[in-house]
C-alpha cells in the first residue's frame, strides 16, 4: 500500500474505518481503484445499426438498469461493433455522437396539438390524437374520394391528402405504412428516396 504522509493522517483520522478495511483482507489502495471501475462492465448491450447514412455501421449500445421492475434502462454509451464486416468497429463523427441523438433535449415526449391560428402547442392524449387524425382523414376522404373518373372508369383514388414516409424507419414500419396508406386509396405517397 502506497500512501503519502498527508493521506496517512487522513486514514488515521478515519480511525476504525481505515484499519477495518485492512482487517477485511484488502488494502486501501485496491479499494480506491474500485471507485474507477470500468464503466461498461455492468452495462447491458444491444446490437443496432446507425440510423444516419446508408453504410449502416454496426453499433453496440450500452445501457444501465437491469430491466427489473422500476429499473428502466437508459442508454449512456454507443460505440462501433467490431464484429461488423463493414465498419469493423469504427464510427464517424456523427455516429460517435449518437447517444446525444437518443438523449436529445429536443426529443418529442407527448402528442401535441396546434389549433388554427394558435401561437403554441397544447399537450393531448394519444386517444385524442388518434381520434382527431382519423376524423380529419375521414371527412376529407368522404368528401373528395374519386370512385370514377370523367370517362366512367373505376379509379378509387383519394388525392387531397398526402403522406410522406420516413427514410430511417425500419422495413417493418415501411411495410405497414404502405399497406395502410394504399388501402385508403391515397396517391400522394412518397418517401425521402424522392429527394
Amino acid at each position, binding site marked *: 500500500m502506497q500512501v503519502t504522509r498527508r493521506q496517512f493522517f487522513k486514514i488515521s483520522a478515519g480511525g476504525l474505518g481505515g484499519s477495518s478495511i485492512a482487517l477485511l483482507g484488502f488494502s486501501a489502495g485496491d479499494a480506491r481503484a474500485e471507485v474507477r471501475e470500468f464503466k461498461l462492465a455492468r452495462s447491458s448491450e*444491444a446490437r*443496432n*445499426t446507425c440510423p*444516419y*447514412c*446508408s453504410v*449502416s*455501421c454496426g453499433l453496440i449500445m450500452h*445501457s444501465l438498469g437491469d430491466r427489473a421492475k422500476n429499473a428502466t434502462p437508459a*442508454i449512456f454509451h454507443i460505440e462501433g461493433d467490431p464484429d461488423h*464486416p*463493414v465498419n*469493423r468497429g469504427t*464510427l*464517424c*463523427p456523427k455516429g460517435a*455522437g*449518437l447517444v446525444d441523438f*437518443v438523449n*436529445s433535449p*429536443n*426529443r*418529442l*415526449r*407527448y402528442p*401535441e*396539438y*396546434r389549433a388554427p*391560428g394558435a401561437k403554441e402547442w397544447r399537450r393531448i392524449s394519444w386517444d385524442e*390524437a*388518434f*381520434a382527431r387524425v*382519423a376524423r380529419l382523414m*375521414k371527412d*376529407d*376522404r*368522404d368528401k373528395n*374520394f374519386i370512385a370514377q*373518373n370523367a370517362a366512367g372508369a373505376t*379509379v*378509387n383514388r383519394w*388525392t387531397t*391528402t*398526402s403522406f*410522406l*414516409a420516413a427514410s*430511417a*424507419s*425500419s*422495413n417493418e414500419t*415501411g411495410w*405497414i*405504412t*404502405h399497406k*395502410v396508406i394504399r388501402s385508403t*386509396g391515397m*396517391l400522394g*405517397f412518397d*418517401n*425521402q428516396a424522392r429527394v
Partner: protein
Amino acid sequence: MTNHWVDIKNANVIVVMGGNAAEAHPCGFKWVTEAKAHNHAKFIVVDPRFTRSASVADLYAPIRTGTDITFLGGVINYLLSHGKIQHEYVRSYTNAPLIVNEGFRFEDGLFSGYDDAKRTYDKSTWAYETGPDGFAKIDETLQHPRCVFNLMKQHYSRYTPEMVNNICGTPKELFLQICEILATTAAPNRTTTFMYALGWTQHTVGSQMIRTAAMVQLLLGNVGMPGGGVNALRGHSNIQGLTDLGLLSNLLPGYLTLPGEKETDYRAYLDKRTPKPLRPNQFNYWSNYPKFHVSLMKSWWGDKATKENNWCFDWLPKLDMEYDILRQFELMGQGKMHGYFCQGFNPLGAIPNKAKLIKGLSQLKYLVVIDPLATETSCFWENHGEYNDVDPASIQTEVIRLPSTCFAEEDGSLTNSGRWLQWHYKGAEPPAEAKPDADIVAGIFLKLRELYQKEGGTFPDPLVNLAWEYKTPAAPTPVELAKEYNGKALADLADPKDPTKVAVKKGQQLDGYGQLKDDGSTACGCWLFSGSFTEKGNMMARRDNYDPSGLGNTLNWAFSWPANRRILYNRASCDPAGKPWDPNRRLIWWDGATWTGVDVPDIKPDSPPGEGMNPFIMQPEGMGRLFALDKMAEGPFPEHYEPFETPIDTNPLHPKVVSNPAARVFKDDWEMFGTSKEFPYAATTYRLTEHFHFWTKHTRLSSIVQPEQFVEIGEELAREKGIKAGDRVKVSSHRGFIKAVAVVTKRIKPLQVNGKTVHHVGIPFHWGFKGLAKKGFLANTLTPFVGDANSQTPEFKSFLVNIEKA
C-alpha cells in the same frame, strides 16, 4: 449498389463522382483506402470542389456542376475511338449488336418524337427492329449502321476532349489521363467501380448521369464483376428499404407498379407488365410479375382477394398523373391538397424553394407530423425572425404532432446501400409517451376503420377489409410484420420436382420468391424481400462474418436481396462459356452441371452456358442496355443538357435546346428561375462529415463541432467581391436569400467554361430554426423547384446565386 461496401476493396480503379464518400459515408469509404493500400487501386475524384475524398485521390479533376454527362460521354467517346472496350462482353452481354428502329433520330439536341407543347416524347421509334418471330434483330459483327453500337458511336463522337474542356471546364490533359486509367480496366481481369450519391441524382438530368456511368461500365465489362458495378451510395439508412417496399406515388412493393386510370382491365394491366422475351432462351424474370402481384394482394386483403374479383384489383387506386412530392406541394399551393402527413420527414428543409413550401403548408386544413424530433416542418407556423418570418395568427392549419421512437428504442431491419437487410435490437424505452411508428400507424388505422364501421362512408371496402391478423392489433410487432413481407403458404405447396410431395405446408413461411404462385395459394408482401424470414428463422439477424473466399462476400451475415445475392448480375463475371473472366476473383462458375460459387448465382441455376441465357435476367433480351429503349423520359442515349439555371446561358452542343426538354416545370416556377446576369455564380449544396441533414443540429456533439452556418467560396471570387474569411455574407437567388459566415478556400477554383470564368459557391445545408446549434437559414430557400425528368428528384446541385457582404 449493384455490389456492396466491402466489395469496393476488390476494385483496381475507383471513381468517386457525384458524391463525396470520405465525408458523407466515412466508414464505407474505408474500403476505398483498403483497395488503395492492398489492391494497389488507382483512385479518381471528379468534383467541383477539392473534397476530402479528393485529398486522398491519385487524381483529382475539377468539373462544373451539372456537366457530368459531358464528361462521361467524353469517356465513352474515348473508349470507342481507341477500341478500349471489353469486346467479348460488349458483344455477348450488352445490346450493342441489336438493330434499332429505322425511324430513330437525334438532331439538334432532340430525339425523334418530341412534342414541344407537351414537353414529352412519343417514344415509338426508340425501339428495336424485330423480326417475324418477335425477337430483336441482331448483327453480331457490329457492322449494321443502325445497330446500337454504331448509333452510340455516332452519338458520342461529338463529345471530344475539347468539348469536355469547353463545357465542364476540366483541363483536357487531366481528362485524358483519367480516360487512360479507366481504359486499363477494359482488360477482362481488371475492374473499375463507380461510387456516386446525390451529386448525381439531384439534377434535372440526374438519372441520365447515372446511366452514362452504367454505359461506361458495360463497355468496360465491369458490371457483375467483383470490384466493379455502379454503386449508389444512398443518403439515409433505409432509403433503399423504403424504395424496395415501394413507398412512392406510382409504386407497389418490390418495384411492381400501380395501374394508370386507363388500365382498369386487370388482364391488360398484367400483360403490359409481363414482357415477352426479346431474344431466344432468355430467363425474362419479369414474366413472373403475376405471381408477385397476386401474392401481394393476398397479403393485403387475404380471403377477400379472389380470382373472381381479380384479387381486389379495383381496390387499388388508379393514377391520372404522378403525385410525387413536388406535385404535392404544387397542389397544396393551388388549394387542392387539404391534408398532409410527415413521418420522419422534414420537407420544409428537404424540398426546394422554402417560400413556396410555407405558402403550401399554410393552405392545408391539417398537418400530421410523426417524428422523434421537433422538426422545422412541424413548427412551420412559428415566427423565428428572419429565419422563418411568418405570422402564426394568419396560418389556419391544424397541426398534430406525434412523438415516435428512434432506432435505439425498437427492433427491426434497415436495408443498407449494399442491399443488406440487417436486424437491430431495442436498447431502451422511448422518452415519456413516444410510440413506435408501427403503433402510430396502427392507432390511426384502427380509429379510421372504426369510424367507417360505425358511420359508413365513401367506399370503405379496401379499408375495412384490410388483413389485420396481429396478436395485439394496436401494436403489430416487427417480427409479425417481417414475416408478412417475407410471405407464407396459404395452402400446401407441391414440390415442383416431385408433385406427390409437399414442399411447403400451409401456414409455413416461404423460403424465397421462387415459391410464389399466381393462383392465390401464397401471400407475400414484397417478393424481393422473400427469403428474409423463413421457417429457419430471421435471416436478417444472422451474424456470422466468416468470409471464406476473401472477397468480402459474407453470405451468412444478414440477408441481401434478392435471394441473399451479394453482387447483382454476377453471371456477367464469367465468360459466355461459364469461366470467370478473372481467375483470381472467382465469384461464380459453371461446374458442368450447375452454377455455383461464393455468391448466389444470378442466373437460372441449371441453365448450361451453351443455352445462351444472357446475364441481365430482368430484361426481356437479357442484355445490359447501352440503348435504353423507351425507359427514360429524355432519350435512349444520355445527352448533355444544362441545369435550368445555367451560368453560360447556352448549351454549346445545341444552343436551341439548352436544358432538359422533357423535365416537368410548373408555370409559376418558370418565372422563379434566375438568370446569370443577376445571379452570376454556380451554386451547389452538400453535407458535412459532422452533420446529418437536419437531425444532428438537435444533438449536442454535432452542434459543438459544427455550430454555425457557413458557405464556401474560392480565393479568386473572394478577392473580386472584397470578402474576407469570417465575414458575414448574404447569398441570394431569385427565390430568396440566406446569410452565413464566409469560408474562403483554395478548395474551389474558378473554371474556364465556354469562354467565360465560372465561380462556384458551396452551400452546406445543415442549419435551420430548430435545434441546439446556432439558428440558421434553411438552404432550400435558394433552390429551384424543378426535378429530374424521370424521378422528379429536385435540382439541388446546380443553380445560380449572387453573393455579397452582409
